[in-house]
């Protein structure tokens, strides 16, 4: 099994990386871009086979360690 966790800055948090990428894209002629948010992507290979147990464990890890709930949101997927 494989889990993926995508971590993004909360909307209320300043995201200078996202803004800089957005500006660069506009300068390259990529129009129609409303906003860019730069985050992190974690790919986690699992030995476990119990999806629900893995989900619980990774939710705990994402909340307490992999993301900082003060500034970030995360999205977990297991396949």
């Amino acid at each position, binding site marked *: 099994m494989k889990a993926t966790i995508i971590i993004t800055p909360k909307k209320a*948090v300043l995201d*200078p990386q996202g803004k800089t990428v957005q500006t660069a894209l506009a300068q390259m002629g990529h129009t129609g871009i409303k906003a860019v948010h730069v985050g992190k992507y974690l790919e986690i290979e699992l030995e476990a086979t119990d999806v629900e147990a893995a989900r619980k464990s990774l939710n705990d890890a994402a909340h307490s360690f992999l993301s900082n709930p*003060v500034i970030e949101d995360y999205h977990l997927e297991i396949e």
Partner: protein
Amino acid sequence: MNFAILQFPASNCDQDCVHALRVLGHTAGLVWHKDTSLGGADAVIVPGGFSYGDYLRCGAIARFSPVMQAVKQFAEQGGLVIGICNGFQILCEAGLLPGALIRNRDLQFHCEQVFLKTANRDTPFTSQIPAEKLLKIPIAHGEGCYFADEPTLAALQANGQILWQYCSATGELTEAANPNGSVLNIAGICNDRRNVAGLMPHPDRASEAILGTTDGRLIFESMIAEMQSRTPAKAA
């Protein structure tokens, strides 16, 4: 007074802190991150650096070090703890201080002298700072933009937990004087109990005249005065 200076892999201001406190006539010992005891120290300094390579987020891994359990217990007992730069980031990640430090607004690493206004002089970290005195202390960080949500900021203001704010050479809290985009120009805060503080500027690099400023001493001297006032008077 005896200070415990924590040492994580890639701490790099631990020796600066030891030196600064020795210059002030006090003792300071290094405590390795795997230690579970603070060795009976009177106060703790979480120094600057790039603990664990700043991987994942600054301070995110350091806060799970065994020594941080001892720091939490020490803080719960009312002990004085100050985090400088990376130490501030670690204390926020550990939940000992509210909010978080994120990338500087301009994505640049800033290494420069800044001026700080002391917003609350009635704390164990600021009591020796003269009224109206602006502190000239260097910063050196890429992720020092302080962020907290609105309710947290309101609580910080209501409780007098904002200790230092970036200001101009004449003491104005301007955008131009804010090196990293911190909300409310915040450079340092304390917890609501006022025994744990953190700041991005480096008082450890501002404690000797040869370094261009001795204003950092006032912060350490405030902590020392607090500890001395707590120590029961010895029998004559």
